[in-house]
């Protein structure tokens, strides 16, 4: 995957995180990880995973869910779905 495509995925991920947790565009562009925003808690985490699956036409394997706690890790998982 090219850097451009990866950047597009990251933008989409940040959009979904922003929509899921009601963030402003500036907040969604900042450092995001589980616990920050505080609404990214257990319920929020699963809402986010479902939202990402729909938006990115991607299926998250159960064993990866616990690891997807920040933007770079999520982008990696979506860009490399076989991992």
């Amino acid at each position, binding site marked *: 995957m090219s850097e451009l495509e990866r950047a597009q995925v990251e933008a989409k991920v940040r959009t979904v995180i922003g929509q899921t947790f009601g963030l402003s565009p500036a907040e969604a562009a900042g450092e995001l990880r589980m616990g920050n925003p505080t609404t990214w808690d*257990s*319920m929020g985490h699963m809402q986010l995973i479902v939202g990402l699956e729909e938006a990115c036409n991607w299926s998250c394997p*159960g064993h990866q*869910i*616990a690891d997807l706690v920040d933007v770079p890790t999520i982008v990696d998982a979506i860009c490399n779905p076989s991992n």
Partner: protein
Amino acid sequence: MGNPAEFPHSVPLGLIIPADLVGDVVGKLHYVSEQLAGFRISDSRDTVHFRLKPGQESQRALVTDRLREVATKLCRSYRSWGDKVLVSRPREHFAYHEDPHPSLEREGQIFRYGNGRYGLGPHVVALVEAFDRRFLRTVESFSPEAHQFPSIIGGDVLSRCRYIKSFPHSLSLVHHLREDLDAIQGFAEQAEWGGDHLNVKPNSLAQPETLLSPTVCFHCYAWLADSKQPRPRIITARGKCFRFESGSLHGLERLWDFSMRELIFVGPKEFVLEQRQKVIDASTQLLDRWNLSYEIKTATDPFFIDDFSQQSSFQRAFDLKFEVRAALPYKPGGSVAIGSFNIHQDFFGRSFSIGTIDGQPLHTGCVGFGLERVALALIAQHGLDPAGWPPGVREDISR
């Protein structure tokens, strides 16, 4: 096909219930409607066959829609996880194979008062007490602080930790009468037993402040609420717990009113994780001493319909819950959860503002054993005669 005489109505679900979700779906379908008299999921797991109570045929369309709604919501976003088994103690041959409930009733060792309500006789009490004593001895090295909590719990506590939203179906509300002379006198004159319920005018009841406590550890978090803890805490308590599980209530397997011994951890994440593993190891020794056949494996809590999919997925993803499932030889392949080892991450720390000195939310975890279920598992595997119970059990009873 369902037997048309037994279940005259059928709902095609438009999906196939995953095999490992059938138990969860069955557990929730009991709550669909008071007009539902019985149901069965088809072998192909794509249809629910059901019957309505007499005279309730007009409710058929509504019940049909609700059955489909519940199945759809529970199966939504389903993921196949596979069980993570930490400990396995299988056994091919058991000394006893019968359902012990009829014999226990006949011999005066249990008494059924009503749905989910049982009294225990001397042999069962001896097992309950012996297991509790031995468990406390097993975890002596943790130096737990002994506590005692009430059987009723404030609605504020259950609301603060989302229990009311996540488990509304199993709540047991506690009412007293309104502090009003007319209401009390009217109640005394009018309230009467209606055959299967007490006829009560709702306006004689005060709004509920409390509920029967569904678990032990919530009291602990409420006790520590809005505090900063300078050091990790380990607390133990035994209490009565109450979970209304409707049509799933069955003998000592699933009581409305049961006893639980808990060990509760409050501290940093690593501390809580380490304690849970230590208790799993210690409990394994205890269960082996009692010569039980069991597995310790991943599990989820019975969240209600709307929270189920996401909350249970989260628990599985983070290995938050492991259960001890003891074999029930009278149900081929069947088992009952007799204990659980739970991590809550910082959920209760945040919900109850329990923090470190510098204000970071603390993590919590708990271990709980359902004492009546332990007794049932022992009797189901080793029989009713104490002389036939494993030496470790007899020794623990005699101490």
